[in-house]
């Protein structure tokens, strides 16, 4: 499949799409967790996002997509000067990937043929400045999760193995998806995701039929379908770029900071990461809507997705924490 399904053509799933757009505006928000049923378009959305994102400028041939030639790590070789436009990397991290593939390891080819000790970068290097997508993230093996936690925290991948001592930047937006029925996610990893959304299979027939219609049109005549949706996709891309530019000049009134804090206190979320992410997401939301000032309504729009996974979890609460956030939101910020 050369051309992924267009992002704007995905029916419904507004929360998921919104969360992905927000991280595209401000990667600092720190990732999206998409939990829900099978066959609801989780993977489709991630692959569509890859095509939607604006291109980045990077040094040609640089394994970590450096911005400037002087940032290219020494182990990647010298002489890399040329700047090129390339698509934002969206890297798949398959379940059961070995540590070697994730963090990188000794380049065994060069070691064997030339006897050189060289570093072969892994998935984390390739995902720098882009997205790292983990399907079935809740089934990921624990030691890989530990690695990811460490790197996601520091934005730097440190490799100390086989006589190599390498560090390189690894700043990426973590996108995870999974089905909660198959296992829970460790709270430590949960907390690292900036936003979390729950997707459900659409419950009404009309929506489902519409999904089928679009998918069918896409499969039958991909070119025509892409053409039909190209305008919407590029409008969305422009909106993202405009929002990125506007982010710096955004005013954040004191009252909004107070709102953030009081909401998090009322919810009893652990740590301060909740407030920080809430504010960042609200700013991105404001920029996206084209407002000059962050307001309470932006806060309300993003509150559920930023906070619902940070509550101390009651494992037996079936309603899910989304409902709790909504309730307390209504009480605290009328």
């Amino acid at each position, binding site marked *: *499949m050369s051309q992924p399904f267009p992002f704007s053509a995905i029916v419904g799933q507004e929360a998921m799409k919104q969360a992905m757009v927000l991280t595209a505006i401000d990667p600092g928000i720190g990732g999206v967790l998409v939990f829900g*049923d*099978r*066959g*609801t*378009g989780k*993977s489709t959305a991630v*692959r569509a996002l890859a095509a939607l994102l604006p291109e980045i400028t990077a040094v040609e041939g640089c394994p970590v997509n450096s911005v400037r030639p002087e940032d290219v790590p020494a182990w990647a070789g010298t002489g890399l000067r040329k700047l090129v436009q390339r698509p934002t990397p969206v890297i*798949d991290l*398959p*379940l*059961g*990937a*070995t*540590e070697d*593939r994730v963090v990188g390891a*000794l380049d*065994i*080819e060069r*070691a*064997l*043929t*030339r*006897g050189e*000790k060289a570093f072969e970068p892994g998935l984390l290097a390739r995902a720098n400045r882009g997205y790292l997508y983990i*399907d*079935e993230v809740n*089934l990921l*093996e*624990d*030691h890989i999760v530990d690695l990811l936690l460490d790197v996601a925290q520091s934005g730097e991948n440190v490799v100390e*193995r*086989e*006589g190599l001592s390498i560090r390189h930047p690894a700043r990426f937006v973590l996108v995870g998806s999974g*089905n*909660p*029925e*198959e*296992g*829970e996610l460790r709270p430590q990893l949960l907390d690292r995701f900036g936003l979390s959304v729950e997707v459900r*299979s*659409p419950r009404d*027939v009309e929506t*489902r*039929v519409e*999904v*089928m*219609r679009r*998918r*069918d049109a896409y*499969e039958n005549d991909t070119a025509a379908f892409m053409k039909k949706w190209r305008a919407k996709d590029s409008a969305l891309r422009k909106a993202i770029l405009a929002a990125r530019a506007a982010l710096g000049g955004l005013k954040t009134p004191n009252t909004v900071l107070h709102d953030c804090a009081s909401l998090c206190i009322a919810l009893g979320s652990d740590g301060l990461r909740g407030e920080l992410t809430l504010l960042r997401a609200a700013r991105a939301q404001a920029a996206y809507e084209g407002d000059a000032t962050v307001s309470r309504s932006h806060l309300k729009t993003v509150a559920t997705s930023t906070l619902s996974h940070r509550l101390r979890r009651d*494992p*037996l609460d*079936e309603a899910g924490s989304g409902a709790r956030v909504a309730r307390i939101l209504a009480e605290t910020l009328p």
Partner: protein
Amino acid sequence: MSQPLSPWARVQTALAVLAVDPAGVKGLWLRARASDLRARVTAALPPARRLHPGIDDASLFGGVDLAATLAAGHLIRSKGLLADPTPLLLTMAERSPAGLSARLALWLDTQGPCLIALDEGADPDEGLPAALADRLGLFLDLSDLAWSDTEGLSFEAGEIAAARARLAAVRLPDKALESLTKVAFAMGIPSLRAPRLAICAARALAAWRGEDIASDDTLRHAAELVLAHRGDLPAEAPEAEPEQAPPPPPPEGEAGEDSPPEPQEDRLPEDVLLEAIRAALPADLLAQLAAGKAARSAKGSGTGAARKGNHRGRPLPPLAGTPGAGKRIDLVATLRAAAPWQPLRRREAGAARLEIRKSDLRIKRYQQSSDRVLIFAVDASGSSAFARLAEAKGAVELLLAQAYARRDHVALIAFRGQSAELILPPTRSLVQTKRRLAGLPGGGGTPLAAGLRMAFDLAQQARARGMTPTVALLTDGRGNIALDGRADRAQAEADSLQIARALRLQGLPALVIDIANRPQPALRQMALVLDAPYLPLPRADAQRLSGVLQAALGG
């Protein structure tokens, strides 16, 4: 009105669809034990490369071909199976680990044309991993076919090619898209992949039959092949539960009767499709569906339960050492250790080949992490139901919260009436556990022995999978049904004690919680036999219970 396909016709149709449009229907889930019959079917499948559940990344994605590299003295890479867009055939698919399923699913989503999964599941709880079951379009079960029902299967290459040529021109009736989607919805299939696959199958089948516009029959048959096995007939559990928490998809019988009759001009009313699917359901579908469900809950419940008999540990850094005596050589690490020395050694030896010295040898090490599974055997008999079943449920919930905190697996067994029943196989999903527990009805005799027996079996299974089981028995101790189902108090007593002894011999840790109104001496006796802590459930003090459990489990 046409007939549904006969079982053998269904096989033939499915294979034709697969041959015409493999990339559209994405593949086939073939459930059958190895037999001549299966061989007959697989022989007619499109040529595919085989892979097995134990396949490693290097074979899938390509990597360094170590044997060839060592022999040739220069690096030789092998090409991975997934590199070519050829169909793949996964044998023993029921044993496919989550990692492999996820990779194959990704491959199917992006580049792979199709996957044929041979599922040899014997037990109902074995089945194709959900990630794959959702993506493969067609499903065939050969178990109700006899050799005499079948005949040779072969397709003319010319016919297939002609059908493929027609495929692009085939149209579906206007209503078809909507009908298939609605039917899938009415059957309670949440995934939107299902109707999509059904549409592809309908197209391929129409092309195969030489229709320009897919006929009603074709649509019906496509629905039969793609949708029938995904239906959610027994909503949550095979046993009907008194209260069903999730919005139950209407069982098919109702869907047919309750839905307002579609106007006649509608070319393809949904209930006709439903009818066709219902007719296609084999008699033992309940068991099969339960299998699918069980696979969903058991297979994916974390790393522990997913792999049978092969509970790999977390790899530790390799260690210098000599292989043998159960230590396996870590070839890659060995080569890595030897690699930097090669130019030097070559100069010294004068030969242009790989020089590996003993000091380079590395062995593999794993850290075994054993998951715990807490097996609750809950007495749901009449005597306890009237006494304190509700309280016992509360107690179990408290324990569940603790199990969650410690990332334990839990399993739930209930015994009442004549026998014991496995309500929930080991899982980490607490929400499910709680739901099942809430729906647990009470009443009937107390088959304590049967309950213990099942707990014992389950514990043994869990152990075989590399987990550490603990049995928590909640009962009022008035066992009155013997193992063979007779109401014989003395025999029941003897049976339970015998199993208790077996548990003790196996060294299975246990915990006895007495939920009778007054503490039962018989239960204290059993706890002694089990060498287990004995705890009369204090009235309205569930906290104390969880405290005791914590102490008992050394937590």
